């Protein structure tokens, strides 16, 4: 399949400012308690997000993307705990905050939207009350002011008749509309950081594009930092500035979108790119990386991708590769990278 990717629109670059990072994750380790063992779903993940920057987090299902996102928000399911690491956000380590202090940050300065818009809203309450609830949780607006704010937010997110739709219930909205409502909940307090965990995966293609455009616009408008999780490289290529490729709980390659799409170095990244020949369409992939992500319980000690890798050399099954600088703003976890050939 000979097809090259168009260079990303340059507008993406430079959207981020040069100050200290908005979010800095350092060596995050998140474990899941299974019957007898503690399994590492996230194993030493580090990355940064700047103001106004969109970082794409990509990888096959089960790579630990959601666990990473939920760790940042401290919203992990009961079985999972953060074992190590630091999450610096706006000058403080979120992992050291009291539950109460963390609650004041969620939905206020840092928000999250989830993959399943159909089940993410409370079915028993109106859209309006679910949005104003965020405003009342973090501010002192009067009921009328909060309602006006909620309506303005819905309007900004492209919901027609926003003021009237405030009194609708979630089941009266389509999936795309509900995801807009989720974005409204997340953004109504004007946060600095948005974590979006596969926000468009459950939606059909046209709606998907609309929602992504919205995120891109809002990022520019609000100077929002975004962690955008997806298993779709097309989405990353379209709107992200930087991309982190995750495999089996680790980041295996991270760098600017321009660099990683033009010169992917990790065999896994290369495989993902080959499996997505049509960046803007959702066709069945022509090329799938053979094999699957190893089980958390039987994680190889050396390179986790070795069993599926065509570049494997002896060292790959002996020691664990570290993430090293390969280029300017381009880090790589691989002993034997080769140039990308489609």
């Amino acid at each position: 399949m000979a097809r090259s990717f168009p260079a990303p629109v340059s507008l993406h670059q430079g959207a981020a400012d040069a100050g200290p990072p908005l979010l800095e994750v350092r060596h995050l380790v998140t474990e899941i308690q299974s019957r007898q063992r503690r399994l590492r779903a996230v194993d030493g993940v580090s990355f940064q997000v700047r103001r106004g920057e969109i970082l794409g987090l990509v990888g096959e299902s089960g790579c630990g993307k959601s666990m990473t996102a939920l760790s940042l928000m401290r919203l992990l399911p009961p079985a999972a705990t953060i074992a190590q690491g630091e999450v610096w956000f706006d000058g403080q380590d979120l992992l050291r905050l009291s539950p109460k202090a963390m609650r004041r940050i969620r939905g206020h300065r840092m928000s999250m939207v989830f993959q399943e818009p159909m089940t993410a809203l409370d079915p028993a309450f109106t859209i309006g009350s679910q949005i104003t609830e965020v405003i009342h949780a973090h501010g002192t607006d009067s009921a009328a002011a909060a309602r006006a704010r909620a309506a303005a937010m819905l309007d900004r997110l492209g919901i027609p008749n926003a003021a009237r739709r405030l009194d609708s219930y979630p089941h009266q909205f389509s999936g795309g509309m509900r995801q807009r409502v989720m974005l409204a909940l997340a953004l109504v307090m004007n946060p600095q950081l948005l974590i979006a965990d596969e926000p468009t995966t459950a939606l059909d293609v046209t709606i998907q594009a609309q929602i992504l455009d919205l995120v891109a616009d809002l990022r520019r408008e609000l100077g929002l930092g975004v962690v955008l999780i997806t298993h779709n490289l097309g989405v990353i290529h379209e709107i992200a500035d930087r991309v982190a490729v995750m495999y089996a709980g680790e980041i295996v390659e991270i760098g600017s979108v321009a660099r990683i799409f033009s010169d992917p170095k990790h065999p896994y990244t290369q495989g993902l790119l080959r499996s997505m020949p049509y960046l803007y369409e959702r066709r069945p992939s022509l090329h799938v990386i053979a094999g699957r992500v190893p089980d958390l319980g039987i994680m190889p000690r050396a390179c986790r991708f070795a069993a599926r890798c065509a570049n494997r050399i002896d060292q790959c099954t002996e020691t664990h590769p570290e993430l090293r600088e390969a280029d300017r703003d381009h880090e790589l976890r691989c002993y034997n990278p080769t140039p990308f050939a489609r």
Partner: protein
Amino acid sequence: MTRTVAYRSLYALVILLIASFAVFYGMRLAPGDVADVLASHPTGQLTAERVREDLGLNKPILVQYATYMGKLLRGDLGLSLINGQPILTILESSAGYTLKLAAVAALLSLIMSIPLGLLGAWKRNSSFDQGTMLIAVLGMGIPNFFLAILLIQVFAVWLKWLPVAGYETPQHIIMPAIALAAEAMAINLRVVRSSVLEQLGLDYVRTLHAKGVSDQRILWLHVLRNALPPIVALAGVLMRTLLGYTLIVETIFRWPGLGYQLVNAVLKRDYTVAQTLAILLTAAVILFNLLADLGQQWADPRTRRQAGAG
């Protein structure tokens, strides 16, 4: 929704007809002919034949039933077979007591079970949760008559805190209400807990946390609201059992409600009183089921149609 109401009401009516006929027919099967009882009563000056004639007992049973129900619907409840007292008078003096007892017991069971179940689910597997589950097991395992006797023994006989039986003071209702509420409380507790547990695992709860909403608000407003439908559905069933248990509990505590009167009537072989009270109790039970059914529909926003928007 209107169609549902009509359909469920019709269904309840059919059940009521069948049940009332069963009671009516059952009374006829009771040992000792009504007329014999009456004729043999010391105060009675009537012959069995006369009584049969008067009561229409010679006619086919369906005709008797229709006549009886017709009168009942017109508000003519008939007279006591034993002392000629209008059954309406008996009903008026006793229904209030039963309603009061049942209402207090129902309230007690809800006030206990909802917070305990909710907090138990929230702090799942904590010692608090285990404690409430132990209460639930005890509440369901101990028969209410036994609990009644136990309460009397402890609080009336030993501690002398409460009167043994009767109805004269506000304290009199405490023990019968507890005895009546215990099982309902226990069942409710389990249903609340499991319903809440189910809700806590749902995505919208995670969204609420992501919004920065307080735990208290998530639990007492959102989760409780969504956990309600099965609780409301069960409340109807519980009211039904509760009414059934009034027979036992009222009798033990000599609480002069419908159940007490019914048991007395049966013991005295006052068939007209027994029959009418039994049918009215059955009707009340069916009515509660209907209300619970409709309440559950209403409590579930997905079955409630929103006019206008949409």
